[in-house]
């Protein structure tokens, strides 16, 4: 998207250089490579993308440094007025959300009574889920109750979403209500 690129360019202009310039101002010197180094500077040539922390509700700005298709560093966004480049322990480790060996990388399916996961492809998973949803909805749908149009199913629940983006929560809320689901809850309640 053009707009995003523009935005990123603007960002880089404002703060990509920033980390360096800011610090130079603070330290009062800018001695480049005063002596030979054996290693390349860790975040040299990395792409920097601003994000917002996914943990608590403070909403700290974070810079994600990516290089060679992995995340090499994450740090506070010095441009964000909320955290001014500072972070807590959780925000600082955002990198491991990407790098953790525990990340799920494939859709998994557990058959009734089974004691293990099976890898499945997305297509099969979504098709099957859609089928189950339809079955349950169709079996349980109530159009009218005591003379009032209610158009609901009380046999499907949707839980969670406090970590989703606004756009996602919007679509989720719209879809679930669109299906007639009344058991619609998320972490705000608990």
């Amino acid at each position: 998207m053009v707009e995003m690129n523009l935005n990123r360019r603007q960002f880089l202009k404002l703060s990509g250089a920033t980390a360096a310039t800011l610090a130079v101002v603070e330290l009062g010197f800018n001695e480049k490579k005063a002596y030979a180094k054996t290693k390349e500077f860790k975040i040299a040539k990395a792409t920097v993308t601003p994000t917002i922390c996914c943990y608590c509700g403070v909403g700290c700005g974070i810079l994600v440094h990516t290089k060679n298709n992995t995340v090499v560093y994450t740090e506070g966004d010095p441009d964000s007025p909320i955290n001014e480049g500072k972070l807590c322990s959780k925000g600082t480790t955002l990198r491991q959300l990407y790098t953790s060996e525990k990340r799920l990388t494939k859709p998994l399916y557990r058959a009734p009574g089974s004691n293990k996961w099976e890898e499945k492809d997305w297509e099969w998973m979504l098709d099957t889920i859609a089928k189950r949803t339809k079955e349950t909805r169709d079996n349980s749908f109530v159009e009218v109750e005591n003379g009032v149009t209610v158009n609901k199913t009380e046999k499907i629940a949707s839980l969670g979403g406090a970590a989703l983006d606004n756009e996602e929560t919007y679509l989720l809320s719209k879809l679930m209500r669109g299906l007639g689901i009344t058991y619609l809850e998320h972490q705000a309640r608990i």
Partner: protein
Amino acid sequence: MTKYVKYVDVTKCDGCRACMVACKNWNDLPAEPTEFLGSAQSHAKTTADTWNVLQYIEHENGKGNLEYLFRHSSCFHCTDAACEKVCPENAISYTKYGTVVIDQDTCVGCGYCTQNCPFEVISLKEYKDKNGKEYRKAHKCTMCTDRIDEGLQPACVTTCHTGAMEFGDKDAMIQKAEQRVKEIKDRYPNAMVYNPQGVGGTHSVYVLAEKPSVYGLPDNPKVPTSAVLWKDYAQPIGKAMIGATTMAVVGAFVANKIFSKKANGHDEDGGGNHE
């Protein structure tokens, strides 16, 4: 060259431990298994893979009030660094910023530094090379000297949100510390600047809320006398002695040649006129 100091005001620290993970994140340090220590503290002290550790201390002060104290503990970057002194390979050196760094290529993992650091912040780590052979390297906080080179502050300072840590010109930071101690004397009567002169001052200067012993810090740390005797006396004298003996032997050899020529015809065995 300007010397820099990491200023740590423990009274502003709220114990969030971002400094600990920022360090790991910047330096790509792995996590290590930790035991439950009976408090929020994760590691008893710094290790080869954990270059700074946040201490949590419950302390009842003179008035019987509870203080919950925190301290970011890591290498002090001493002006007279025992580790630098004892390193047999000159792998440890002072940078122009005043930081003390270990050259990983030169380090042989002997562990002399780990045993002589008055603050016990250096640790050895065992590695395996590609042939499965084990080797060791000493590790500690580098004060992110690679970042300083690029005009950035150490990762821990950069992430500290309360302003408990700052990084800057040595004199300014020391002045700041002294000023801060004055401000907090009411609340912390034992507050002090910890910049021990026994090691020539440090490049991590602390504002402590309590006496150093409360934090498990030595009151007057210094380069161990044994290390001074060893490195400043024993080793040079030893080397001189080897030199001297060698010289004596060489001298003796040469002298023998000379005298044996002069005494040609004499009994080579020396004076036969014994008895």
